[in-house]
């Protein structure tokens, strides 16, 4: 079952601009993760934020998590053409205890040079 839903589904920006992607989910979670997928390739893990964290940074990436609203955002600052990819949020549900992640359908980011 799909839990995370990314918004917007597609975003086109100019190089140097910031890109913000949002993710909403439905059930309580242990953590939320963001992945990137370049065309025709596998997913690459970007950042993981635990349920007791509110904000996390990694290089040009900033992730926030609001568990009361069941939502997260991924901000990419000073975007580059190489950031063009699909981005997925994935949640680790706190119930059940299994190792499964539930992925959203992804959103496509295009950064124009």
């Amino acid at each position, binding site marked *: *079952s799909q839990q995370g839903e990314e918004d917007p589904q597609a975003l086109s920006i100019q190089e140097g601009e910031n890109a913000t992607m949002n993710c909403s989910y439905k059930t309580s979670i242990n*953590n939320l993760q963001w992945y990137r997928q370049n065309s025709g390739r*596998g997913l690459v893990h970007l950042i993981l934020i635990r349920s007791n964290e509110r904000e996390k940074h990694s290089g040009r990436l900033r992730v926030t998590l609001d568990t009361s609203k069941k939502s997260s955002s991924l901000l990419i600052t000073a975007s580059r053409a190489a950031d063009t990819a699909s981005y997925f949020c994935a949640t680790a549900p706190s119930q059940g205890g299994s190792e*499964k992640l539930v992925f959203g359908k992804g959103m496509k980011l295009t950064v124009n040079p």
Partner: protein
Amino acid sequence: DVKVTQSSRYLVKRTGEKVFLECVQDMDHENMFWYRQDPGLGLRLIYFSYDVKMKEKGDIPEGYSVSREKKERFSLILESASTNQTSMYLCASKGGGGRNQPQHFGDGTRLSIL
């Protein structure tokens, strides 16, 4: 760095054939996963394995089986391939250090069933 290797990037098979997709990881990870990815549907979990010879059904196991005889290798088997199994198949692995660990993905196998 973790390396997850899928045996084929592209594969073309015929309806009714038995198809094997192989995945190998080099980090001694306990957990391995098979997903399929279709446009507009995102990633859907087919099966996963949390130890050698152990497996658990994901969200869409019908028409598939898996095998994990060795820790590093996780195979996905299409018992009798059908055209609706044409898809991108992604394998992933994850260490056993708790749930706050990421999954590491292979580059995928694009499978076409004719």
